Protein backbone atom coordinates (compact mmCIF):
# COMPACT_ATOMS: atom_id res chain seq x y z
CA UNK A 1 0.00 0.00 0.00
CA UNK A 2 0.92 3.65 -0.23
CA UNK A 3 1.28 5.97 2.73
CA UNK A 4 -1.73 8.15 3.55
CA UNK A 5 -1.51 11.81 2.60
CA UNK A 6 0.77 14.02 4.68
CA UNK A 7 2.62 17.32 4.56
CA UNK A 8 6.38 17.52 4.63
CA UNK A 9 8.88 19.90 6.17
CA UNK A 10 12.66 19.86 6.09
CA UNK A 11 13.85 22.21 8.83
CA UNK A 12 17.37 23.58 8.51
CA UNK A 13 18.43 23.30 12.14
CA UNK A 14 17.54 21.81 15.51
CA UNK A 15 15.71 24.91 16.72
CA UNK A 16 13.42 24.90 13.70
CA UNK A 17 12.78 21.15 14.01
CA UNK A 18 11.85 21.49 17.70
CA UNK A 19 9.63 24.48 16.94
CA UNK A 20 7.72 22.42 14.34
CA UNK A 21 7.29 19.59 16.84
CA UNK A 22 6.05 22.01 19.49
CA UNK A 23 3.65 23.64 17.04
CA UNK A 24 2.13 20.44 15.67
CA UNK A 25 2.34 18.09 18.66
CA UNK A 26 1.19 14.54 18.03
CA UNK A 27 0.23 15.33 14.42
CA UNK A 28 3.91 15.57 13.52
CA UNK A 29 6.48 12.83 13.40
CA UNK A 30 10.22 13.06 12.81
CA UNK A 31 11.57 11.22 9.75
CA UNK A 32 15.12 9.89 9.98
CA UNK A 33 16.12 7.00 7.68
CA UNK A 34 12.49 6.03 7.13
CA UNK A 35 13.34 2.33 7.28
CA UNK A 36 10.73 1.72 9.97
CA UNK A 37 8.47 4.76 9.67
CA UNK A 38 7.85 4.37 5.92
CA UNK A 39 6.81 0.70 6.22
CA UNK A 40 4.53 1.65 9.13
CA UNK A 41 2.98 4.42 7.02
CA UNK A 42 2.64 2.17 3.96
CA UNK A 43 0.88 -0.38 6.17
CA UNK A 44 -1.17 2.54 7.54
CA UNK A 45 -0.14 1.67 11.08
CA UNK A 46 1.16 5.24 11.32
CA UNK A 47 -0.53 8.25 9.76
CA UNK A 48 1.28 11.44 10.76
CA UNK A 49 -0.17 14.62 9.28
CA UNK A 50 3.27 16.17 9.01
CA UNK A 51 6.62 14.54 8.47
CA UNK A 52 9.60 16.46 9.79
CA UNK A 53 12.59 15.30 7.78
CA UNK A 54 15.70 15.55 9.97
CA UNK A 55 18.23 15.16 7.18
CA UNK A 56 19.31 18.83 7.06
CA UNK A 57 19.71 19.22 10.83
CA UNK A 58 23.48 19.51 11.28
CA UNK A 59 23.28 19.21 15.09
CA UNK A 60 22.15 15.59 14.70
CA UNK A 61 25.14 14.54 12.61
CA UNK A 62 28.71 13.62 13.33
CA UNK A 63 30.73 10.82 14.82
CA UNK A 64 33.44 11.97 17.21
CA UNK A 65 35.65 10.27 19.68
CA UNK A 66 36.81 12.13 22.72
CA UNK A 67 39.16 10.49 25.23
CA UNK A 68 36.72 7.97 26.65
CA UNK A 69 33.43 8.38 24.82
CA UNK A 70 32.15 8.33 21.28
CA UNK A 71 29.42 10.77 20.38
CA UNK A 72 27.20 9.25 17.72
CA UNK A 73 24.94 11.90 16.18
CA UNK A 74 21.35 10.64 15.92
CA UNK A 75 21.35 10.85 12.09
CA UNK A 76 24.48 8.68 11.78
CA UNK A 77 23.55 5.78 9.53
CA UNK A 78 24.45 2.18 10.35
CA UNK A 79 26.67 2.24 7.26
CA UNK A 80 28.61 5.28 8.51
CA UNK A 81 29.49 3.33 11.65
CA UNK A 82 30.42 0.21 9.69
CA UNK A 83 32.71 2.30 7.49
CA UNK A 84 34.35 4.08 10.45
CA UNK A 85 37.90 2.71 10.69
CA UNK A 86 38.02 3.17 14.50
CA UNK A 87 34.84 1.18 15.16
CA UNK A 88 36.42 -2.19 15.97
CA UNK A 89 38.96 -0.65 18.34
CA UNK A 90 36.65 1.72 20.19
CA UNK A 91 33.22 0.05 20.11
CA UNK A 92 33.79 -3.66 19.44
CA UNK A 93 30.32 -4.63 20.69
CA UNK A 94 28.67 -2.26 18.22
CA UNK A 95 30.86 -3.72 15.47
CA UNK A 96 29.66 -7.23 16.38
CA UNK A 97 25.98 -6.22 16.35
CA UNK A 98 25.84 -4.21 13.10
CA UNK A 99 26.04 -7.07 10.57
CA UNK A 100 22.95 -8.63 12.18
CA UNK A 101 20.81 -5.53 11.69
CA UNK A 102 18.57 -5.90 8.66
CA UNK A 103 20.23 -5.94 5.24
CA UNK A 104 22.82 -3.96 3.32
CA UNK A 105 20.32 -1.56 1.72
CA UNK A 106 18.46 -0.96 5.00
CA UNK A 107 21.71 -0.25 6.86
CA UNK A 108 22.64 2.29 4.19
CA UNK A 109 19.66 4.45 5.19
CA UNK A 110 18.64 3.48 8.75
CA UNK A 111 20.00 5.68 11.53
CA UNK A 112 21.25 5.02 15.03
CA UNK A 113 18.89 7.65 16.45
CA UNK A 114 15.95 6.07 14.64
CA UNK A 115 16.71 2.65 16.09
CA UNK A 116 17.00 4.05 19.62
CA UNK A 117 13.86 6.21 19.21
CA UNK A 118 11.76 3.37 17.83
CA UNK A 119 12.77 0.86 20.54
CA UNK A 120 11.64 -2.17 18.56
CA UNK A 121 11.62 -5.13 20.96
CA UNK A 122 13.89 -7.10 18.62
CA UNK A 123 16.31 -4.28 17.80
CA UNK A 124 19.95 -4.92 18.54
CA UNK A 125 21.21 -1.43 19.42
CA UNK A 126 18.99 -0.67 22.44
CA UNK A 127 20.37 -3.82 24.11
CA UNK A 128 23.92 -2.93 23.08
CA UNK A 129 23.53 0.57 24.54
CA UNK A 130 22.34 -0.85 27.87
CA UNK A 131 25.34 -3.16 28.11
CA UNK A 132 27.71 -0.30 27.30
CA UNK A 133 26.00 2.08 29.77
CA UNK A 134 25.54 4.66 27.01
CA UNK A 135 23.69 7.93 27.55
CA UNK A 136 21.04 9.26 25.22
CA UNK A 137 20.98 13.03 24.73
CA UNK A 138 17.54 14.46 23.99
CA UNK A 139 16.66 18.07 23.27
CA UNK A 140 13.40 19.95 23.70
CA UNK A 141 12.18 23.51 24.11
CA UNK A 142 13.73 23.64 27.58
CA UNK A 143 17.19 22.61 26.39
CA UNK A 144 18.85 19.24 26.43
CA UNK A 145 19.24 16.43 28.94
CA UNK A 146 20.93 13.06 29.09
CA UNK A 147 19.22 9.81 30.03
CA UNK A 148 21.06 6.59 30.94
CA UNK A 149 20.28 3.76 28.49
CA UNK A 150 19.12 1.66 31.46
CA UNK A 151 16.32 4.21 32.05
CA UNK A 152 15.57 5.10 28.43
CA UNK A 153 13.63 2.13 27.05
CA UNK A 154 10.44 2.33 29.05
CA UNK A 155 7.99 0.04 27.25
CA UNK A 156 6.75 -1.56 24.04
CA UNK A 157 7.92 0.98 21.40
CA UNK A 158 8.13 3.55 24.22
CA UNK A 159 11.08 5.58 25.39
CA UNK A 160 11.93 8.46 27.69
CA UNK A 161 12.09 10.81 24.68
CA UNK A 162 9.04 13.08 24.90
CA UNK A 163 6.75 13.78 21.95
CA UNK A 164 8.13 17.28 21.57
CA UNK A 165 11.75 16.20 22.00
CA UNK A 166 14.34 14.81 19.62
CA UNK A 167 17.22 12.45 20.20
CA UNK A 168 20.32 14.46 19.39
CA UNK A 169 23.13 11.98 20.02
CA UNK A 170 24.14 8.80 21.79
CA UNK A 171 27.22 9.02 24.00
CA UNK A 172 28.89 5.65 24.23
CA UNK A 173 31.81 4.85 26.56
CA UNK A 174 34.84 3.50 24.68
CA UNK A 175 35.66 -0.20 25.27
CA UNK A 176 37.49 -0.85 28.52
CA UNK A 177 40.83 -2.57 28.02
CA UNK A 178 40.19 -5.26 30.63
CA UNK A 179 36.72 -6.23 29.40
CA UNK A 180 35.70 -8.63 26.64
CA UNK A 181 32.53 -8.31 24.58
CA UNK A 182 30.15 -10.88 23.11
CA UNK A 183 27.08 -11.02 20.90
CA UNK A 184 24.84 -13.71 19.51
CA UNK A 185 21.37 -13.78 17.97
CA UNK A 186 19.05 -16.32 16.42
CA UNK A 187 16.82 -15.24 13.54
CA UNK A 188 14.96 -17.24 10.92
CA UNK A 189 17.10 -15.78 8.13
CA UNK A 190 20.12 -13.49 8.08
CA UNK A 191 18.96 -9.92 8.70
CA UNK A 192 15.53 -10.84 10.04
CA UNK A 193 14.46 -9.54 13.42
CA UNK A 194 15.85 -11.81 16.14
CA UNK A 195 13.74 -14.41 17.98
CA UNK A 196 16.28 -14.06 20.78
CA UNK A 197 19.63 -12.36 21.09
CA UNK A 198 22.09 -11.16 23.68
CA UNK A 199 24.78 -8.51 23.95
CA UNK A 200 27.30 -8.77 26.77
CA UNK A 201 30.50 -7.62 28.34
CA UNK A 202 32.57 -9.32 31.07
CA UNK A 203 35.96 -9.34 32.71
CA UNK A 204 36.12 -13.02 31.84
CA UNK A 205 33.56 -15.10 29.95
CA UNK A 206 34.13 -18.67 31.10
CA UNK A 207 34.03 -18.86 34.10
CA UNK A 208 32.01 -15.67 34.19
CA UNK A 209 33.39 -12.61 35.97
CA UNK A 210 31.52 -9.33 36.23
CA UNK A 211 28.93 -9.87 33.50
CA UNK A 212 26.61 -7.26 31.98
CA UNK A 213 24.06 -8.85 29.65
CA UNK A 214 21.04 -7.49 27.79
CA UNK A 215 18.66 -9.79 25.92
CA UNK A 216 16.62 -8.54 22.95
CA UNK A 217 13.81 -9.99 20.89
CA UNK A 218 12.32 -11.72 23.91
CA UNK A 219 10.27 -9.03 25.71
CA UNK A 220 8.80 -5.55 25.17
CA UNK A 221 12.14 -3.87 25.88
CA UNK A 222 15.72 -5.14 26.20
CA UNK A 223 15.98 -7.28 29.34
CA UNK A 224 18.79 -6.69 31.83
CA UNK A 225 18.50 -8.47 35.17
CA UNK A 226 21.13 -7.31 37.68
CA UNK A 227 20.20 -10.16 40.07
CA UNK A 228 20.81 -12.67 37.34
CA UNK A 229 24.12 -11.05 36.39
CA UNK A 230 25.25 -11.38 40.01
CA UNK A 231 24.06 -14.98 40.23
CA UNK A 232 26.07 -15.91 37.14
CA UNK A 233 29.36 -14.89 38.77
CA UNK A 234 31.81 -17.81 38.65
CA UNK A 235 29.60 -20.06 36.47
CA UNK A 236 30.65 -21.75 33.25
CA UNK A 237 28.84 -21.03 29.97
CA UNK A 238 26.89 -24.30 30.29
CA UNK A 239 25.79 -23.56 33.83
CA UNK A 240 24.84 -20.03 32.78
CA UNK A 241 22.50 -21.37 30.09
CA UNK A 242 20.43 -23.28 32.64
CA UNK A 243 20.48 -20.33 35.07
CA UNK A 244 19.11 -17.95 32.44
CA UNK A 245 16.32 -20.28 31.40
CA UNK A 246 15.30 -20.57 35.05
CA UNK A 247 15.61 -16.84 35.76
CA UNK A 248 13.30 -15.91 32.87
CA UNK A 249 10.52 -18.16 34.22
CA UNK A 250 7.56 -15.96 35.15
CA UNK A 251 8.72 -12.98 33.11
CA UNK A 252 6.29 -11.61 30.51
CA UNK A 253 7.96 -12.74 27.29
CA UNK A 254 6.84 -12.14 23.70
CA UNK A 255 4.98 -14.81 21.78
CA UNK A 256 4.26 -14.66 18.05
CA UNK A 257 4.16 -16.83 14.96
CA UNK A 258 7.96 -17.12 14.97
CA UNK A 259 8.41 -18.36 18.54
CA UNK A 260 6.37 -19.02 21.67
CA UNK A 261 7.35 -17.47 25.01
CA UNK A 262 8.76 -20.82 26.16
CA UNK A 263 10.85 -21.11 23.04
CA UNK A 264 12.21 -17.59 23.57
CA UNK A 265 13.10 -18.51 27.16
CA UNK A 266 14.98 -21.55 25.91
CA UNK A 267 16.70 -19.61 23.11
CA UNK A 268 17.84 -16.94 25.59
CA UNK A 269 19.91 -19.57 27.40
CA UNK A 270 21.24 -20.83 24.07
CA UNK A 271 22.35 -17.40 22.81
CA UNK A 272 24.03 -16.59 26.12
CA UNK A 273 25.98 -19.86 26.09
CA UNK A 274 27.02 -19.41 22.48
CA UNK A 275 28.04 -15.79 22.99
CA UNK A 276 30.14 -16.71 26.04
CA UNK A 277 31.81 -19.61 24.28
CA UNK A 278 32.76 -17.42 21.32
CA UNK A 279 34.34 -14.70 23.49
Amino acid at each position, binding site marked *: *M*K*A*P*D*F*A*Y*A*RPADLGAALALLAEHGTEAQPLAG*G*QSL*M*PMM*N*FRLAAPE*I*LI*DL*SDVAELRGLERTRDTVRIGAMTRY*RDLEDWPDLGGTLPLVAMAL*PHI*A*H*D*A*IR*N*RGTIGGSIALCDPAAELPAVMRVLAAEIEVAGAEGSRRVAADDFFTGFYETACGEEELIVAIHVPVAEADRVYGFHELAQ*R*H*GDYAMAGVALSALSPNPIRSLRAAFFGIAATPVRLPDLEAALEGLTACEAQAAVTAALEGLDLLADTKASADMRRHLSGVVLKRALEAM
Partner: protein
Amino acid sequence: MDKTREITLTVNGESVTARVPVRMNLVDFLRNELELTGSHVGCEHGVCGACTLLMDGRTTRACLTLAVQADGAEVVTVEGLAASGRSAALARAFTERNALQCGFCTPGMLASAVTWVEGGGSAERDAIRAHISGNYCRCTGYQSIVDAIADVAGSKAEDAA
Protein backbone atom coordinates in the same frame (compact mmCIF):
# COMPACT_ATOMS: atom_id res chain seq x y z
CA MET B 1 3.06 23.22 4.85
CA ASP B 2 3.96 21.75 1.48
CA LYS B 3 2.07 18.92 -0.18
CA THR B 4 4.19 19.15 -3.31
CA ARG B 5 7.80 20.13 -3.66
CA GLU B 6 10.27 20.79 -6.43
CA ILE B 7 13.23 18.43 -6.56
CA THR B 8 16.37 18.27 -8.67
CA LEU B 9 18.31 15.06 -8.85
CA THR B 10 20.57 13.15 -11.20
CA VAL B 11 19.06 9.99 -12.66
CA ASN B 12 21.40 7.75 -14.64
CA GLY B 13 23.70 10.69 -15.29
CA GLU B 14 21.01 13.14 -16.40
CA SER B 15 19.78 16.05 -14.33
CA VAL B 16 16.03 15.98 -13.68
CA THR B 17 13.87 18.68 -12.11
CA ALA B 18 10.25 17.98 -11.22
CA ARG B 19 7.50 19.04 -8.86
CA VAL B 20 6.30 15.96 -6.98
CA PRO B 21 3.66 15.20 -4.37
CA VAL B 22 5.55 14.77 -1.09
CA ARG B 23 3.95 11.38 -0.46
CA MET B 24 5.25 9.91 -3.72
CA ASN B 25 8.02 7.41 -3.15
CA LEU B 26 11.14 7.29 -5.27
CA VAL B 27 10.30 4.10 -7.13
CA ASP B 28 6.88 5.43 -8.20
CA PHE B 29 8.53 8.66 -9.33
CA LEU B 30 11.02 6.76 -11.47
CA ARG B 31 8.47 4.35 -12.91
CA ASN B 32 5.45 6.60 -13.37
CA GLU B 33 6.96 10.02 -13.98
CA LEU B 34 10.25 9.15 -15.71
CA GLU B 35 9.03 5.89 -17.26
CA LEU B 36 12.05 4.03 -15.96
CA THR B 37 10.25 0.78 -15.25
CA GLY B 38 13.35 -1.30 -14.60
CA SER B 39 13.05 -0.85 -10.83
CA HIS B 40 10.29 -3.12 -9.64
CA VAL B 41 7.74 -2.77 -6.87
CA GLY B 42 6.98 -5.80 -4.76
CA CYS B 43 6.11 -5.42 -1.11
CA GLU B 44 6.38 -1.64 -0.54
CA HIS B 45 7.62 -2.22 2.98
CA GLY B 46 11.32 -2.84 2.53
CA VAL B 47 11.33 -6.61 2.72
CA CYS B 48 11.60 -8.01 -0.81
CA GLY B 49 14.36 -5.89 -2.36
CA ALA B 50 12.74 -5.62 -5.82
CA CYS B 51 12.98 -1.81 -5.74
CA THR B 52 16.67 -1.72 -4.74
CA LEU B 53 18.74 0.82 -6.69
CA LEU B 54 21.80 2.98 -6.09
CA MET B 55 21.45 6.36 -4.42
CA ASP B 56 24.69 8.27 -3.92
CA GLY B 57 26.52 5.03 -4.60
CA ARG B 58 24.76 3.00 -1.91
CA THR B 59 22.03 0.40 -2.38
CA THR B 60 18.72 1.91 -1.31
CA ARG B 61 15.12 0.76 -1.02
CA ALA B 62 13.28 3.05 -3.42
CA CYS B 63 9.95 2.06 -1.85
CA LEU B 64 11.07 3.38 1.57
CA THR B 65 12.55 6.57 0.18
CA LEU B 66 10.36 9.52 -0.68
CA ALA B 67 11.10 11.24 -3.98
CA VAL B 68 11.62 14.48 -1.99
CA GLN B 69 14.35 12.73 0.01
CA ALA B 70 16.22 12.10 -3.24
CA ASP B 71 16.48 15.86 -3.84
CA GLY B 72 20.11 16.54 -4.70
CA ALA B 73 20.99 12.85 -4.90
CA GLU B 74 22.54 10.80 -7.63
CA VAL B 75 20.29 7.88 -8.52
CA VAL B 76 21.32 4.95 -10.70
CA THR B 77 18.73 2.39 -11.77
CA VAL B 78 19.20 -0.88 -13.62
CA GLU B 79 18.78 1.04 -16.88
CA GLY B 80 21.77 3.20 -15.95
CA LEU B 81 23.82 0.22 -14.83
CA ALA B 82 23.22 -1.45 -18.19
CA ALA B 83 23.79 1.67 -20.33
CA SER B 84 27.12 2.48 -18.66
CA GLY B 85 28.36 -1.11 -18.83
CA ARG B 86 28.76 -1.26 -15.04
CA SER B 87 26.64 -4.38 -14.81
CA ALA B 88 27.83 -6.00 -18.05
CA ALA B 89 29.98 -8.74 -16.49
CA LEU B 90 27.25 -9.56 -13.98
CA ALA B 91 24.55 -9.61 -16.66
CA ARG B 92 26.64 -12.09 -18.66
CA ALA B 93 27.24 -14.25 -15.62
CA PHE B 94 23.52 -14.16 -14.68
CA THR B 95 22.67 -15.43 -18.18
CA GLU B 96 25.37 -18.11 -18.19
CA ARG B 97 24.40 -19.37 -14.77
CA ASN B 98 20.61 -19.20 -15.30
CA ALA B 99 20.45 -16.78 -12.38
CA LEU B 100 17.03 -15.49 -13.39
CA GLN B 101 13.76 -17.09 -14.38
CA CYS B 102 10.90 -14.58 -14.28
CA GLY B 103 13.39 -11.75 -13.77
CA PHE B 104 11.30 -9.82 -11.28
CA CYS B 105 14.06 -9.77 -8.65
CA THR B 106 16.89 -9.20 -11.13
CA PRO B 107 17.13 -5.36 -11.19
CA GLY B 108 17.39 -5.25 -7.38
CA MET B 109 19.68 -8.26 -7.32
CA LEU B 110 21.99 -6.57 -9.83
CA ALA B 111 22.14 -3.37 -7.79
CA SER B 112 23.17 -5.35 -4.72
CA ALA B 113 25.61 -7.47 -6.74
CA VAL B 114 27.23 -4.41 -8.33
CA THR B 115 28.07 -2.88 -4.94
CA TRP B 116 29.46 -6.23 -3.79
CA VAL B 117 31.73 -6.68 -6.78
CA GLU B 118 32.79 -3.02 -7.02
CA GLY B 119 33.48 -2.93 -3.28
CA GLY B 120 35.97 -5.78 -3.68
CA GLY B 121 33.64 -8.39 -2.14
CA SER B 122 34.96 -11.95 -2.06
CA ALA B 123 33.74 -14.99 -4.00
CA GLU B 124 32.92 -16.74 -0.73
CA ARG B 125 29.36 -18.06 -0.91
CA ASP B 126 28.33 -17.34 2.69
CA ALA B 127 29.50 -13.74 2.43
CA ILE B 128 27.62 -13.24 -0.85
CA ARG B 129 24.50 -14.76 0.68
CA ALA B 130 24.68 -12.38 3.64
CA HIS B 131 25.13 -9.45 1.28
CA ILE B 132 22.07 -10.33 -0.84
CA SER B 133 19.96 -11.43 2.15
CA GLY B 134 17.67 -8.46 1.55
CA ASN B 135 16.82 -9.49 -2.02
CA TYR B 136 14.16 -12.13 -2.38
CA CYS B 137 13.94 -14.43 -5.37
CA ARG B 138 10.87 -16.64 -5.68
CA CYS B 139 12.17 -18.62 -8.67
CA THR B 140 15.79 -19.65 -8.68
CA GLY B 141 16.45 -20.93 -5.16
CA TYR B 142 19.43 -18.52 -5.03
CA GLN B 143 22.18 -21.07 -5.82
CA SER B 144 22.56 -19.88 -9.38
CA ILE B 145 22.53 -16.21 -8.32
CA VAL B 146 25.32 -16.88 -5.84
CA ASP B 147 27.17 -18.79 -8.59
CA ALA B 148 26.93 -15.80 -10.94
CA ILE B 149 28.09 -13.24 -8.37
CA ALA B 150 30.90 -15.55 -7.23
CA ASP B 151 32.07 -15.95 -10.85
CA VAL B 152 32.39 -12.20 -11.32
CA ALA B 153 33.86 -11.54 -7.85
CA GLY B 154 36.34 -14.39 -8.39
CA SER B 155 37.51 -13.27 -11.81
CA LYS B 156 37.85 -9.69 -10.57
CA ALA B 157 40.09 -10.92 -7.75
CA GLU B 158 42.15 -12.89 -10.30
CA ASP B 159 42.54 -9.84 -12.51
CA ALA B 160 43.76 -7.85 -9.54
CA ALA B 161 46.30 -10.55 -8.56
